[in-house]
């Protein structure tokens, strides 16, 4: 079966210190060659800390940022990079900050109408019917349509953001930290709504978050990013329970959990992106690092079953 979303060696680098003429002063590789597949109807969770390239990846997938090289395929067809509207009908984005992703000077109706009119050419009664249907799907009352974004709480604004993304009738939703700006009691409401919609509309999700527990709760598979590379991937129930990459283990140990003493207080920071290390980017923080790790970048390969890790010395379960 063709996967809903497939990337092949997708990369992105940024030029630092652009000059009017001549080459830039330096290049930073935000996303190193990255290949993965998401089967239809599944959720791929992506975790990583700030600076790991997860937002760059998300913006490339929805066509807001052209990749430096590599391919994106949706349902078996390679995507045309020139036309954001072509992306728009297949893949949509739900933003982290629900309030700033809504134009403060437009009513909710104007905001929801935009994708319906521009991507699907709807108007008249069909448009009104579709808006009512969308609002019903995200449990919002129709009288909200004539209001402005600042009148809504974070949870309501995020529902509006989800309704706008669904308006394009996409096959895939990229959820970029969709609940990190929300309070926990509201966060669960939005997560449950997303789960319901996925089943009802047969959607495929890419769920990006820094909150390990949230990702684990909503994902089928999880991919861990570090310094622009995929370091581990596997089924959600295994990745944090039996991590194979030392970085995944550090992440899992650092998450504050009720009934566990403070741990993972290991020092160390990300390498300098302008001067990336020769070998594994995690080697300087890794207790298992050997000479090999400082020399050669490890490839992502099967460790056991369907669990992959990019590590020369993966952990035993």
């Amino acid at each position, binding site marked *: 079966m063709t996967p809903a979303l497939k990337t092949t060696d997708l990369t992105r680098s940024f030029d630092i210190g652009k000059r009017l003429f001549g080459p830039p002063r330096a290049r930073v590789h935000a996303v190193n060659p990255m290949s993965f597949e998401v089967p239809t109807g599944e959720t791929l969770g992506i975790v990583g800390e700030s600076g790991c390239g997860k937002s760059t990846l998300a913006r490339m997938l929805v066509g807001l940022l052209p990749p430096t090289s590599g391919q994106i395929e949706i349902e078996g067809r390679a995507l045309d990079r020139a036309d954001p509207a072509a992306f*728009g009908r297949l893949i949509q984005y739900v933003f982290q900050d629900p309030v700033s992703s809504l*134009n403060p000077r437009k009513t909710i109706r104007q905001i929801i109408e935009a994708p319906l009119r521009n991507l699907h050419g709807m108007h008249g009664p069909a448009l009104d019917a579709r808006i009512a249907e969308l609002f019903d799907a995200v449990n919002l009352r129709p009288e909200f349509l004539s209001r402005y974004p600042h009148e809504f709480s974070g949870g309501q604004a995020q529902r509006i953001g989800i309704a706008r993304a669904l308006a394009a009738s996409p096959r895939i939703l990229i959820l970029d930290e969709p609940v990190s700006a929300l309070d926990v*009691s509201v966060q669960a409401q939005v997560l449950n709504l997303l789960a319901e919609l996925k089943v009802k509309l047969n959607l495929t999700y890419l769920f990006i978050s820094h909150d390990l527990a949230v990702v*684990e709760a909503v994902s089928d598979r999880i991919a861990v990013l570090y310094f622009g590379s995929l370091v581990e991937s596997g089924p959600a129930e295994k990745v944090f329970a039996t991590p194979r990459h030392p970085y995944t283990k550090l992440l899992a140990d650092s998450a*504050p959990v009720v009934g566990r003493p*403070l741990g993972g207080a290991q020092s160390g920071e990300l390498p300098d992106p302008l001067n990336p290390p020769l070998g594994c980017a995690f080697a300087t923080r890794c207790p298992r690092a050997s000479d090999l790790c400082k020399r050669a970048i490890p490839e992502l390969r099967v460790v056991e079953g369907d669990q992959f890790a990019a590590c020369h010395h993966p952990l035993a379960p």
Partner: protein
Amino acid sequence: MSLFLRLLFRNKLAGFGAVVLGLIVVLALLTPILPLHPPNETNTANRFLRPLSDGHLLGTDHLGRDLLSRLMWGTRLSLAVGFAAALVAGLLGATIGVIAGYFGGRTDNVTMRGIDMLMAFPYILLALAIVAVLGPGLFNALVAVAVVNIPFFARNIRGVTVGIAHREFIDAARLAGMGNTRILLTEVVPNIVPVVVIAMSTTIGWMILETAGLSFLGLGSQPPQADLGSMLGEARAALITAPHTSIVPGVMILLIVMSVNLLGDGIRDALDPRLRSGALSRPMAATRVKRAEAPAPKGDGLLRIDALETQFHVGPRIYRAVNRVSLQLDPGECLGLIGESGSGKSVTALSVMGLVASPPGVITGGAIRLNGQDLIGAPYELLRSLRGRKVAYIFQDPLSTLHPLYRIGDQLIEAIRVHEPVSHAEAHRRAIKLLEDVRIPNAAQRARAYPHEMSGGMRQRVGIAMALANDPEIIIADEPTTALDVTVQAQILALLDDLRRSRGLAILFITHDFGVVAQLCDRVAVMYGGRIVEAGPTPKVLAAPAHPYTKRLIACVPELGAGRRALAAIPGLPPAVDDLPPGCAFAPRCEKARDSCRAGEIALDGDARQVRCLFPEVTP
């Protein structure tokens, strides 16, 4: 609109400006139908008549023309030219600014360098050059003044547009299939209109002056046509013998420009959302106190808060952010204060040292006792001597609490020397020691770094070092790890825990994360709607929550290692603290709520383990 007018007239000077300008504009509009002499009718026999002479209220000029009539017609012309120039400069400048700011890159570079070249000329020289090329005349003067003012608008609007072009709703519009032109017109422009209006309202006065200047030099309106500048220019020769011919147009220019500027400032303040909330006035050095009487202490402890009430008074609304909160912090203890946004946890913490911004914050009741001494209503000098020395704060975002232009070492030295009269060298030595204490590698070298050169985790370590600078007894940490990554958060939490044990610090730790509370805090208090709903030893509260809110909030938090699952949610929203229901604030969202829950005040029951509920989950 009525809100705008109310805000405008709150500023008395702006109101005055509006009235004066309004009068002038009305008179200028009515000029053609007023019973005036024709402005250009000469009568050399009556030249230089003094004001209040028969038939000529303001006298006559050197050709015997009626000054009042010329003044009215001149004002009409000057105002029209000034407004037109502002409109043209505003529209063209804003268009250039929007395009440069939105497209960025090379477009931006080329356009803005062009604008920079325009700005490199002294404005009056540039205007003179333009008029010299186009030839004298009022319309050409208008063109010159407009062109000279384009850079001001272009640069201003470009800056605003750059900020908007990177907002998420622009990305959303692109994903909705909109092209650049539509995004510019329907998404960007509506957001910059207020800025253009503000910029115009503050520059019209200036443009009227510039036009008058060109006319004064004889490059604007041509005789016999009157405008304020040319009237001044013609009167210059008779300045000593007939001063009234200069004074009359001079006073009018003064009145117009002054009223336009006063009104413009008022419009700016009324339209600016930051100033609208009343932030126009700088917050006071300590929170305002309006308290009837200090309640008697209910116990001891290093820090004891009794029935604290902090409110925000915004217009007619009263937000009860903190509603009779009582807490006790013992030496060496870590107390967690947990709650969702708007629950009042940060305001409680800021009230301790009187740091709640006033206006609109007011402490309306309760007592805060540090070693038995009441801090509410204490003189500012006392609060200032205690801030940082006895009670120090660590905030969420160290990037915004550290000064961006000073090296972190110098900021630490300053913090030390504020409270202790030590030499610079001694303070420097101690600053390095502090940085080592918070485990910053290469402390001596890092002390020379600026805040933006450090990572988030390192900056928060500096924030902690800053709090430790004067060896305080209490640290109030307001979500210190919320902005950090999990691995860095673990490092910072471990550091705080070590410091508290090695130095015997008491910590009031504010957070929304139960995992963090469980790992760090001895006791925990849960806040909801400005009140404490439950408090007790952390393990007991987390293992067997007594308040339904605590229980269900804990159930909402996914726990690592439990795999894929549906999450429990609490339906509804937290209450707005300006409209709290009587009785239990959680009742509208609570499954167990009965009529008695909504009837009246519910007490916080218990001693070591407290709960504010009529039907607790477990008996505390």
